[in-house]
């Protein structure tokens, strides 16, 4: 009986940072659909999305230049912080446009291997394995639509980054509060590990009024 042995790929910190930041950008594209948020009506109609295949799954990517530039700036900054080992957490916050109340928090907790950051060593792990783990998370994000409360009101996104204290604040970032939800419901999703960066996913959302009743 032949045994399948996955060939392991060498992963550096730059490569791992790129994988993780790319994951964030695709997750940011997928999360609105999971939250059944309608993009700002008329600004981001459904026609402005293109279908691509990523992580073995069909993914809808926005073609809006503003959103794309936003995500590009985001991923570039996150990858910088990831390479420096300064990024602890990334949170995608969904708030009501009218009341600025936080409705959902998509929490991506990051654990960095300090030895890799300090000494610059590399690790070995199969790319396929990493992609498979990310695929699982993407499926779970999509399945969250079954239990997340429906958000009919216009909503806005906000991206929070939990960094070390000695990180210099870039021009496009400002210090902020954590934008927490009072008495949230929490659902823990799967995690993926590149052997350098381990990302845990958790979604916390405000209890629906119907559920509270």
């Amino acid at each position, binding site marked *: 009986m032949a045994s399948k042995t996955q060939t392991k790929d060498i992963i550096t910190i730059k490569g791992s940072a790129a994988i993780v930041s790319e994951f964030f950008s695709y997750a940011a594209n997928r999360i609105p659909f999971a939250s059944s948020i309608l993009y700002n*009506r008329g600004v981001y109609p459904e026609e402005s999305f293109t279908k691509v295949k990523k992580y073995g799954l069909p993914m809808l990517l926005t073609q809006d230049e503003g959103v794309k530039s936003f995500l590009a700036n985001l991923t570039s900054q996150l990858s910088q912080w990831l390479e420096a080992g300064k990024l602890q957490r990334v949170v995608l916050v969904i708030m009501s446009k009218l009341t600025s109340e936080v409705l959902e928090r998509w929490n991506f907790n990051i654990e960095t291997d300090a030895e890799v950051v300090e000494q610059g060593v590399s690790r070995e792990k199969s790319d396929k394995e990493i992609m498979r783990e990310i695929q699982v998370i993407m499926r779970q994000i999509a399945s969250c639509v079954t239990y997340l409360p429906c958000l009919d009101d216009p909503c806005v996104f*906000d*991206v929070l*980054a*939990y960094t070390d204290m000695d990180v210099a604040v870039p021009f*496009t970032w*400002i*210090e902020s509060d954590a934008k927490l939800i009072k008495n*949230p419901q929490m659902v823990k999703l799967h995690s993926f590990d590149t052997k350098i960066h381990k990302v845990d996913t958790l979604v916390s959302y405000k209890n629906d009024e119907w559920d509270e009743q």
Partner: protein
Amino acid sequence: MILRTPPVQRKRRASSALDHESPVSDRRLVVYEDPAPVASHDHSDQLVCTYQCRQMLGVEIGQGTGMDSAFPVKSEVMDALSLAEKQVIDYQSRVETLEQNLTRSEEERKRFKDHLDFVEQELAASKGREQALQQQLLKEVTEFQERFKNQVKHSSELEVQLRKEADLRRCAESSATAAKDKVLELEKKARHILESSEREKKHLQKEISYFQDEGKLSCSRISAELERMKMKADNAMKESELLKKQMEEVREQLNEEAEVREARKLKSLHANTELLKEKLLEEKGRREKAEAEIITLEEVQMNAEKLENELKIWKSLVNMIPGVLCFDDIPQKFASLQKEAIDSTLKVGEVTAQLKELEIALESENLCRQQAETQFALAKEKAEDLVLEVKRLKLMLILLALNLTPNYFDGYAKPVESAVVGAVTEERDRLSKHAVTPNKLRIVDTEGATVNASLLRELESSLAAKEEIIKAFESDLHKQGEIINRQHDELKVLNENLNNEARRIKSLERESDRLRAEISLLESKLGHGDYSTESTKVLRMVNTLNIDNETKHTIEALRSELEKAKAKLQAIEELKGQSEAGNLIDAQISDKLAQLKGQIATLEKREERYKAVFAEKISVFRRACCSLFGYKIVMDDQQRPNGIPVTRFTLQSIYAQSDDEKLDFEYESGNTNILVNGYTSQPEISHQVEIFISKMNSIPAFTANLTMESFNKRTLS
């Protein structure tokens, strides 16, 4: 049944004895019985004697006739008669005395007979008692023998149990040696663990010192920054004060217009000072935050130390448990330890039950032995009492025999004495015989007593042997009891260790539950989004989707700042030119001016960059839209009177033949509406507007249709 009263044989014996005695007693007086009684002598009864005398016949006959020839013979005879009469009287008196003596002797004989009967009765009773005692003794002996047999059995059983206990003791000793070996191993492991814990402690202490140093460094940095900011603020305040002074001096020197300009400058300077004050306040706030963070750092260090100690204890406890390599093995090890503890407690309970049973058996055996000893002592006393009674009876008999024999040889006459002696001798013989028979009986009794004594000696010897055996067993049992007590102590120690281990296990379980609760709490906190302000800061990405407006605002703000700074510069340059004195102030102002100029330059550069970037983007977008859709789009933000922002789009087709052919649209919160102008009021265009926009509600269709028509017109033309 012992007969107190003798049988009738005694009376018969007495009557025969009397009959036998009468001839012996009457040996001295012969009783003559006249076969033919003399009738003629009836009238002379007074003279009738039993002894027939022929001579006396003549005398009697002569008395009647008065014959003298016979009188000389009569006087002699009379003398003889008188003599004889006297003798007779004497003899009668003697006979009476003898009869009295006889009666006395008979009475005495009766008395002695009664006494003999009593003694015989007593002898029979004593014999019966002896027999009963012998039977009792035999029964007791048999009982003692049975008890001895049972004791022998018990002793054999105890020996077997002793052997078992000895085996158990050996097993316990072996387990104790194994436990000692385990203890030694555990001690070695504990030493290793202590060494490893000390190393970890040192490592943690190094890390703590490192963190402390880092904290101190950060504190020092923060304090240095605070001081710098303070210095800056102080300098700014001094500069502001100096500027104020300058302004006041300049005011005095210049005109009203200059005063107005100076007022404006002062206002700007005030605004700068206010900005600087705000910055000061911010820095103060940061300093307070830093101080608070320092305090929290210390608290966290304390908590870290506590956690370290708890972790050490936890690790030491985990590593002390043999067979545990990680936290997951702990529950299994706890289960196995609990099972072992339960098994050992069961064994201990069984051993204690067996020990208790042995002790109870020992106590019962001791009680039986004590009872047998008491009964043996009682039997001994009874036998001694019986022997004493027999001796006493023997002495009494001897005394009786001695009292009876002298009375019969004193005070009897010969002829009657012979008969009396013969009777007395006959009585003495009878008494001696009676004395002999009790003696014979005594001999038999003494023989029985000797037999009893020999039996008692044998029993005593066997009892002594058994007692020695029992003593040996007792000594063995005492030793075994000591061994058992030692084992009890060891078992108690093991039980205490087991209880301690159980307590440790419970404490470890509580620690694990607490740690699980902490882990769940931390996970919930993580999910909730809590973070430590000492090590983490939250940054928010500015939404570049709205960056156009914000950049415009920032550009306008920067422009206003630039204008203000430029005005300030001009005013200062004018002041410089006008004022002669104040070279020092100029130098300070020039430094500040240089800083401000630098800031202005950077801001201008940024503005230019933004402008360039946006210009590029906007031009690219506009060109692309124009090429794709065929319309040049001009966007203009306006505001309605009610304050609602509105965006106006002006579209001009590339195929337009004149500049008047423009379409105006108004965009507000996602809704786009066409505006009426000169071009759309044309009938053709208005007709299309009605169809595509009003009816079909599709602006792209309208614009596409318009583009096609324009294209057709162009190409045709």
